[in-house]
C-alpha cells in the first residue's frame, strides 16, 4: 500500500492502518530503543511510548523527507526524555583517569558482530552511550547534540572522545582474545 495512503488512514484513526504502520517500523525502531535503554524492559517502554507519540504527532508530518527518519527522530527523543525522567542519565561510573584517550596506534577491527557491538554499547556508562549513539550512529553533529542534550559542544566532544576510548579498548581486547 502506498505509504502516503497508509499515513492518511492512520490520521483518520484507522486502527488497522496503525497496526500496519507499527509492523513496518517496529523492528528497526526497537533496535534504536535498545541502543539507548539500560535494559530490554526499558527499551520496550521507550518503543511503546515512541509509537504513541508517532500516532499523536502524525498530523505534524509534512511528507517532506524520509518518514522512517521522522519516526527514528521521535524514537530517539522519546528515549532521551524517558531516560531523563527515570533519572537514568545520572552517571555513577567514576571517570577512569588511568585510561589514556584514544591511542592512535591501537587496531580497531574493520567489522564486528552487530549484536556484540550493541551489547558493548549497552554496557557503556549511560552518559557516554547517549552521546556516542547520537554522534556515531544517528550521525548528529556535536552542535546538534549540544542542542538536543542541552550541553555545550565541548562537553559533547569530550564525552564522545571518552566513549570512543572506552569502546575501542574493549573491541581491541576482544580482538586479542
Amino acid at each position, binding site marked *: 500500500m502506498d505509504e502516503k495512503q497508509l499515513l492518511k488512514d492512520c490520521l483518520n484513526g484507522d*486502527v488497522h492502518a*496503525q*497496526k500496519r504502520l*507499527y*509492523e513496518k517500523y*517496529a*523492528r*528497526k525502531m*526497537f*533496535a534504536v530503543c*535498545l*541502543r539507548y535503554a539500560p535494559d530490554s524492559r526499558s527499551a*520496550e517502554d521507550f*518503543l*511503546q511510548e515512541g*509509537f*504513541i507519540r508517532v*500516532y*499523536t504527532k502524525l498530523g505534524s508530518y509534512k511528507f517532506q523527507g524520509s518518514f522512517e527518519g521522522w519516526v527514528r527522530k521521535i524514537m530517539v527523543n522519546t528515549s532521551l526524555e524517558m531516560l*531523563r*525522567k527515570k*533519572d537514568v*542519565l*545520572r*552517571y*555513577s561510573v*567514576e*571517570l577512569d583517569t588511568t585510561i589514556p584517550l*584514544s591511542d*592512535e596506534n*591501537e587496531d*580497531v*577491527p*574493520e*567489522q*564486528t558482530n*552487530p549484536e556484540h*557491538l*550493541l551489547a558493548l*554499547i549497552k554496557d557503556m556508562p549511560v*552518559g557516554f552511550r547517549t552521546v*556516542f549513539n547520537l*554522534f*556515531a*550512529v*544517528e*550521525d548528529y553533529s556535536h552542535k546538534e547534540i549540544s542542542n538536543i*542534550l*542541552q*550541553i*555545550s559542544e565541548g*562537553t559533547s566532544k569530550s*564525552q564522545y572522545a571518552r566513549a*570512543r576510548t572506552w*569502546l*575501542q579498548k574493549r*573491541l581491541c581486547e576482544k580482538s586479542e582474545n
Partner: protein
Amino acid sequence: MQEKKDKIKDLAYNGLSQFEADPPEDMWARIEQQSRRRKNLIFIYRLSIAATVLIMVGLGISLLIPGNTSIINRNQIHVVAKRTITNDSGDQVTDNAAIDKKTIRITQSDKDQISAKNILTDTRKLNKTDRPAEKDIVSIEPEKETEIISLVTSETDINEETSAPIISTEIAVAQALSVPVNEDSLSRILQQQAAQSRVDEKQENRSWGLAMGYGTTPSIELTQEDYAMNSGNTSFSYDEMSSGVANETSYFDEVENTTHNTPITLGLILSRQLAKKWNLETGLVYTQLGYQIKTSELNQTYHIYRNEIYYLGIPLGVRFGIIDRKRFGIYASQSLIIEKGIAGRIYNDTYNQGQLTGSENNSVSIRGIQLSSLTGIGADLRITPKISFYGQAGFQLFFLNASQPYNIRSARMTWPSFQAGLRIRLN
C-alpha cells in the same frame, strides 16, 4: 586521531544504523491499549478544563455583581416621640407640639443592651417636661423606611437626614423624648426593630480589600543526598543548567555543595467578602528563586554554577476569620497558586587558585507551570478601621515539580511559609 575516530564511528554506523531487533509479541496490544486510555484521558482533561473555566467565570461574575447597597443602616435609628392628648371632644389626637424627632446612631453594644425597660427608666429620669403624664406612643424606626415595613403610624415623618455622633442609645433616646413613653408600645417596637436588624445583618456591605505582602521560606545549604540535584528523591525537568552541570561533573559526582537562596515572594491580593467571616482572595504573586552549585576542587580549579528564576503566579483562595475584634483578628487561609516561570538566567564562573578566571551567563526560558497549595494561620492588627498589618505562618505544598527546572521546590515538596504585609479595606 581523525582516522581512528572515523574507524570507530564507521564501525558503529555500519553495524547499527540499519540493525533490527524483534520486539515482544504483545507490544502492539500494549500500544493499542495505551492509545485507547490516552484518548479517554484527553476527553476527561478537556471536560475538566471546561468545567473549571465555567466555575471561574461564574465566580468572577458573582464577584463583579455589586452587592445590595441599598440597605438599611442598622446602626441608626430614628426616634420619633409623639404625644397624644385628649381634646375637648374627648378624642385622642396627636399633640403636634410634642413631637420630637431625632436620628441617632447606636453601637453594637448599645443594641445588645437595648431594652424597653432601660429606655423607659432613663427617659423617666431625664424627663424634664412638666406636662401631666399621659399615654404616648413612641416610634423607633430605622432611617430608611423603604427597606422595611413601617413600624409606625402614618403620622410619622421619617425622612430626616442625620449626622448625629455615636452616643449611648439610652441617653440619646431619653434626650430625644420630651415626654414619657408607653412601655408596651416601646417593647413591641423594639422587638420588631431587633428582628429587622437580624435581616439587615445578612444584607450588610460585601467589602473589598487589598493586601500587599512579602513572603519567604528559609534558605538552605544542601550537602545531604536528599536535597541535592543528583538525589533520586528530587523531581525536576532537565534544563540547560542542570544538563550542563550533569555533564561537567560526571553527573553530579563532583558537586561539593548546593545552596538555595532564600526564596522571595511579593504579592498583591484582592479580597472580596462573601459572608461575615469569609473572604475570597485572588491576585498576583511574584517569586524569585535561585541556587548555587560548587564543584569539587581539582588542580586548584573549581566551578560555581548559579541560576536565578522568576515566577509570576495567580492565587485563588479563601480566608476565614476565626476571631474578629475591633483591633485584632485571627484568621485561617487556604489557597491554590498557579505559577509560570517568566524568566531565568544561568551563570558559570570558573575559579583558579581562588581567583575568578572565567564567567559566562545565558538567559533561559522556563516551560510548564508550577502548582502549589498554601495553608496558613495569621493575625491582623488594625491600625485604623480600614488599614491593618498582617502576619501569617503556614506551609506550602508544591506540585508538578517535574515540569520545572531544578530549584528549592525540587528538593522537597513541602516548605514552611511566612508572610507579612499591609491590608487595606477599600470600602
